[in-house]
């Protein structure tokens, strides 16, 4: 699956886009975020407060309990500030 990070999530993780295999046991976005947090202190810090994070799966807004099968495009970003 593809994971995208925008704005301060991109800066803090140091990654804009990456391809990963769905980790064993991960079934939804919440599980994916928990797994990502275990990858290093920069991920743990960037993803610490999930209330500050908005989620899109396949470019549609999603939530922590949106289920994942492994071939999705998952994006993590802060609340939008366009306009």
């Amino acid at each position, binding site marked *: 699956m593809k994971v995208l990070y*925008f704005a301060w999530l991109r800066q803090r993780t140091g990654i804009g886009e990456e391809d990963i295999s769905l980790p064993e046991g991960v079934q939804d976005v919440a599980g994916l975020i928990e797994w990502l947090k275990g990858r290093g202190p920069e991920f743990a810090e960037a993803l610490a407060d999930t209330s500050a994070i908005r989620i899109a799966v396949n470019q549609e807004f999603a939530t922590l309990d949106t289920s994942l099968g492994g071939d999705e495009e998952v*994006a993590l970003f802060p609340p939008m*500030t366009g*306009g």
Partner: protein
Amino acid sequence: MSVRVQREDFDVGAEIAALTQGNMQIGGITSFVGLVRDMGGNTGSAAMTLEHYPGMTEKMLATIDAEANARWPLEASLIVHRYGRLEPGDQIVLVIAASPHRAAAFEACHFLIDWLKTKAPFWKLEETGDGDARWVEARGSDDAAAARWSANTGKEAAE
């Protein structure tokens, strides 16, 4: 009924002319232009860089545009949103709604910009003037402005 995401500036007059040309059903056009406001005050440069999510941005703008066209009897509509580095005074966003009657044009234009602010994946990185930059935080008042339209179907203006 179209949306564009671009780095380049836009010409409001030319956009309105192109959008409405030849359509004699249009009786009123409302446009909204958003500009970069100088938030820095005394810090000198208050430029900002707009980041977005290519692909999802276009999709969300098209969804918002379709929603406006479902709620109000529009003859034409347009959303143009810029990205990249912008200076104070620069145009950021253009919304146009055209309808046989003014009420629908006014309301649809207001709806489009309110929804866009909270639903289109753009983020502003503001230069603080000392070589640093900070991500602009989302405002609760923008959420409230968008939520105002949740219950209102736009039928009032359609009738």
